[in-house]
């Protein structure tokens, strides 16, 4: 950065003081490094001390595992015997695993179904809830309730409801209207939609709350104006609500895609990836590489696949933001 393009120094006690700070200021403007004493006097030490807990925790629990994972992806290791570097063997092994492509297809299928059902439902629910005149708080609480139910408890409950016998909860209820019984989790073609249904129920509450918050920022004058122009409910939603929510909608979309690409809990707890690998997802495959073998996991393959997934999601995110940059600002 050159002196001519440097922003002016922020106002503060150090700059308000005469003398030394003036020379520091000059030093910065002339490109010379500031002395340690100047840095300490300028509040650098206290900044560092306050930052230290965060740096330590973040470094130790986020960045250190990431760096370890990158190293392990090039190693053969079972965490017991000494690791050996194997170059790109782990990546080759993962790419040659026939289950990988099944897991990728399953994950994309889950993401597609989750987008199809899980994305519009919270939006519709939020818009309807905004239109409701009475007991708004009750509806918000009801919508958010699934989010506060611990996921494992929720899955066990749904598993019970999904009992595929004619006496199962859902099959009994559907039987009242002459439908079913359906196999739910016990059939390769039914299992994934069943997982998406439960995941949508569990996750919709959080997104509804985001939409409800965003809806409060829509200026009521816009609705008034559209009503004066003769717009009905549908036209108000289409011409006022959705354009105003555009930014939030883009963010929730990418969060959902990233979230569904990393789906693990539902297939792990509901089906263990079955039947016949119909619900094995990429993350479940990573878990299997690492933990399925009681005599030591293939942590190299697990980390290699993790890195590939992270790379794909990073590329997707960058592309998405580039493509939608112009659309997301209203």
């Amino acid at each position, binding site marked *: 950065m050159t002196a001519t393009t440097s922003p002016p120094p922020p106002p503060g006690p150090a700059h308000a003081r005469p003398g030394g700070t003036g020379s520091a200021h000059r030093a910065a403007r002339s490109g010379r490094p500031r002395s340690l004493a100047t840095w300490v006097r300028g509040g650098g030490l*206290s900044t560092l*001390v*306050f930052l*230290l*807990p965060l740096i*330590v*925790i973040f470094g*130790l629990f986020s960045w250190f595992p990431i760096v370890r994972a990158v190293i392990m992806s090039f190693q053969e290791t*079972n*965490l*017991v*015997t000494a690791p050996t570097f194997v170059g790109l063997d782990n990546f080759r092994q993962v790419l040659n695993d026939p289950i990988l492509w099944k897991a990728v297809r399953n994950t994309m299928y889950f993401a597609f179904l989750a987008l199809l059902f899980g994305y519009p439902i919270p939006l519709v629910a939020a818009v309807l809830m905004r239109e409701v005149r009475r007991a708004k708080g009750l509806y918000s609480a009801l919508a958010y309730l699934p989010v506060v139910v611990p996921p494992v408890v929720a899955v066990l409950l749904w598993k019970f409801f999904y*009992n*595929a*016998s*004619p*006496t*199962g909860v859902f099959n009994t209820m559907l039987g009242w209207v002459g439908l079913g*019984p359906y*196999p739910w*989790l*016990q*059939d*390769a073609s039914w299992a994934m939609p069943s997982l998406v249904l439960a995941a949508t129920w569990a996750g919709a509450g959080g997104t509804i709350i985001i939409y409800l918050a965003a809806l409060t920022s829509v200026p009521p004058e816009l609705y008034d104006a559209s009503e004066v122009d003769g717009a009905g409910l549908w036209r108000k939603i289409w011409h006022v609500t959705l354009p105003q929510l555009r930014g939030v909608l883009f963010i929730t979309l990418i969060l959902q895609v990233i979230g569904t690409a990393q789906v693990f809990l539902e297939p792990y707890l509901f*089906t*263990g990836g*079955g*039947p*016949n*690998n119909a619900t094995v997802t990429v993350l479940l495959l990573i878990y*299997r590489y*690492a*933990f*399925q*073998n*009681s*005599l*030591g*996991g293939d942590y190299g393959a697990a980390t290699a696949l993790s890195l590939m997934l992270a790379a794909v999601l990073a590329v997707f995110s960058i592309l998405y933001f580039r493509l939608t940059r112009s659309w997301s600002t209203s």
Partner: protein
Amino acid sequence: MRSTRQAIALTLAGALAVSTLAACSSSGSGDDDGDGGSTDGGKVTLKVVSLLPGSEQEAIDAFNAQVEEFETANPDIDIEPEEYEWKATTFAAQLAGNTLPDVFEIPFTDAKTLVENGQLADLDAQFRELPYADKFNPAIIEAGTGPDGHVYAIPAKNVYGVGLHYNRDLFEAAGLDPDDPPTTWDEVREDAKTISDANEGVAGYMQMSQNNTGGWQLTVNTFARGGRTQEVADDGSATSTLSNEGTKDALEWLQAMRWEDNSLGSNFLLDWGTINQAFAAGQVAMYTSGSDVYTALVQTNAIDPEMYGLAALPLEGDDAGVLTGGTLAAMPADVDDAKKEAAMKWIDFFYLGKLVDEDRAVADAETLVANDQPVGTPVLPMFSQEQYEQNQEWIADQINVPLDQMTSYTDTMFDLPLVGEPSQKTQEIYALLDPVVQAVLTDENADIDALLEDADAQAQALLDQG
């Protein structure tokens, strides 16, 4: 004033940073389990396996009573019980992360590789001091012996042969004689159909299919029809034989029961724990599992003893056999001698001594009976048939399991042709057989030949890795 506040804030932030570092370093060192530091004021603290998670209170009381008895006899040892269930998916991480009890349990099939990896402690010196060390069945001791001839894992808890477990109430409800359980696979199929037709929503028969147990039970069914899933040459090289006739027959039999008879119920994703639950709840009428599973059914699933029946596994074809396996007790590699000696006292007290010493046998059985725990569940002998029968005589007054409902198994248990589990890549091959079993159970058009050929190729690739 301002500088004082700034100083306090800085001190607090610094203290937080230092405590974070300290916390991280202490949690990272694993000093509470991993370094073998075992003494606490002259006392050795020993973490041991207690019961399966979720066990009944009576079972916990019985276990605590045994711990108390042991600690009274050994005041220098402090026992810390930990609930434990061996699971393929968690064991390796627990062992690597030093979160297992000091004395933990492993299946026969895993011991040799763990020894080769240097993950188990050498218990040879302590084991040889047991007065009955040379009386074990040599084949059983071999499972826990390393290439140096030292014993690293000690037979404990049980040696099982797989049996056919059945629900007598469901047999009766379907008009079948519960004292005359099926003896051929065709009879199992017929009875399963009768039971599921008579009891809506009940599986006449079901088989495990998840978390490697699908492969385990398919191997059981293969052996019982004279098939074998791998051959190991003298030079140690192994060949996968998953496409054998026994495995095909077993899968075709299952396919017919599922799609022609519809006698397997509606839940096809079950493992060891969940099939036990389903059986105890009366949702499954027959299933195959280790002969000793009755104890777990009582301790964890509160089964009604009246409804339980155990039959011998049907055997058909030349060279048919009953799959046998068992549990070994072992310790992590880095424990010290004091802990090893304490562990051997515990293993002697809790697992083995009661099998060879009359007083100990009776005392142990009385404690269990006092807490309504099963005594006398049929297992295979660790020593000899004579020793086993002698032991049963000692505790005859305490035996409370319904042995008269298990005669189909107990009458023949010493004559069964036993076959050990496949020795190479056991759990990994079981894992790749899970989807095969699931495919047959959930896809009407599953092509068994193609599924087995595919699994065979994958298994061979695993075996070729050495």
